[in-house]
């Protein structure tokens, strides 16, 4: 029984990845649909992030008594990476519930719905990265080749996004309180994770709050290279560790409960 379940879960994931044409079209389709009939279209993604970064950058640098030149790029990258990390968790809750019609009508790998959501967020990330380059240009910054280290970091964050969404989607299909709970928890996490502020602003006896927060390390593995510094080994190790451990837990759940999802939704 267990062996059969493992084989089927594996087949679902492999087949899901193989159906890239399907989820990439669906991901694009979602973006187009969201901005259909708006004049600026998906450019709104870039614009709203840009306005947020500009406004918060000016106000919070004043609040924190920091140089705008130093604070604003930090904030910009932080917000972009945070959104890439947190949106899959929040939207992940609805990957299966939201595709109820299709799941009950057609047989396609369930992982397709997760990958569709992830692809949508990769597209949003690409739109938001425009802000990063604008900020670099405005402040005359150049992180150099170190910035390329953000790529492995981004891949780790992306893999984390997939497992969190798969797990959140599966649990939410069964327990309908999870989407609301996740929304609340993510809001709190946003405030206690060093996104708007930096770890160095904490007094040394409570820095542990940041150090023990896996989200902090995931963000740092992308943010630090983009701002021109190499992340410490502990950051890489934690980010990677969280991803591997998360996938292990998620796979266990997926193997056991994959076949139930169609009944739950």
């Amino acid at each position: 029984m267990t062996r059969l379940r493992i084989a089927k879960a594996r087949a679902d994931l492999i087949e899901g990845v193989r159906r890239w044409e399907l989820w990439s079209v669906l991901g694009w389709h979602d973006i187009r649909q969201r901005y259909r009939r708006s004049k600026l279209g998906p450019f709104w993604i870039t614009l709203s992030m840009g306005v947020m970064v500009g406004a918060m950058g000016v106000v919070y640098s004043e609040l924190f008594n920091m140089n705008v030149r130093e604070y604003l790029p930090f904030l910009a990258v932080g917000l972009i990476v945070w959104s890439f990390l947190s949106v899959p968790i929040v939207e992940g809750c609805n990957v299966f519930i939201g595709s109820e019609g299709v799941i009950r009508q057609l047989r396609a790998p369930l992982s397709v719905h997760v990958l569709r959501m992830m692809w949508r967020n990769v597209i949003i990330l690409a739109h938001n990265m425009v802000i990063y380059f604008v900020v670099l240009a405005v402040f005359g910054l150049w992180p150099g080749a170190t910035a390329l280290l953000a790529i492995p970091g981004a891949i780790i964050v992306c893999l984390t996004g997939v497992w969190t969404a798969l797990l959140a989607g599966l649990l939410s299909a069964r327990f309908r309180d999870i989407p609301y709970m996740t929304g609340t928890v993510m809001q709190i996490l946003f405030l206690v994770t060093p996104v708007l502020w930096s770890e160095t602003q904490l007094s040394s006896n409570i820095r542990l709050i940041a150090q023990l927060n896996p989200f902090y390390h995931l963000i740092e593995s992308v943010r630090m290279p983009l701002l021109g510094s190499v992340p410490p080994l502990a950051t890489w190790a934690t980010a990677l560790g969280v991803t591997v451990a998360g996938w292990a837990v998620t796979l266990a759940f997926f193997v056991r409960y994959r076949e139930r999802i169609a009944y739950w939704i």
Partner: protein
Amino acid sequence: MACIRLDHVSVSFPIYTAGSRSIRARLMAAGSSGRIATDAASRVLVRGLEDVSAEIVHGERVALVGRNGAGKTTMLRVMAGIYEPVAGTATVEGKVAPLFEVALGMDPESTGYENIVLRGLYLGLSKAEIRAKADEIAEFTELGSFLSLPLRTYSAGMQARLSFAVSTCIDPEILLLDEGIGAGDAAFLEKARKRLNAFVARAGILVLASHSDTLVRQLCTRALLLDQGRIVACGPVDEVLARYRGEA
């Protein structure tokens, strides 16, 4: 070679919203013909199928008949691989094209063309394959310029045309129909019937759940009579229909 084999298949649905006994009692009073029971954790369970065994081989055209809630749609969904049985095994060999409620799985805000592409991709075609078949599908639907309008502007019959055209264009070996084509007008039904007959002639498997005796007689050779999730009769269409009508 296409083939469907159900071996002692049982399916039951946990109803999480109906946790209390009073709701359960109300469900019972409403006279649902599905069986309602509770499991170990005292959740309400609705029995969809109970210990169903059947074998359908290539070239067979089988009708599922029975009252509302007898388990016809559930059985089709098991054959489509959407519901995996709680007990027993379901083996399905061959490319399956399910065609259930026509509106399900279509995006009302997208145009007809976009829905053709999306549905085709879901059914396992590549973009290139869909492009190659797009004209044929468009022609079959006879929807013309409506195909560039959002699906929400379509009537039920037009939606039925579209999903029927896409689902049958993938050259399936197994076609599962759930009253799907009932919404079309007479001319379309005739066209759909021709396509179904051509499909059947290629020795594919057709499974049709329907309340229409005419449709069942026209398309099927064998029938399964379902009642409360069990197969109570199985045989030539006329015999099974006679028994079903006799009981009802």
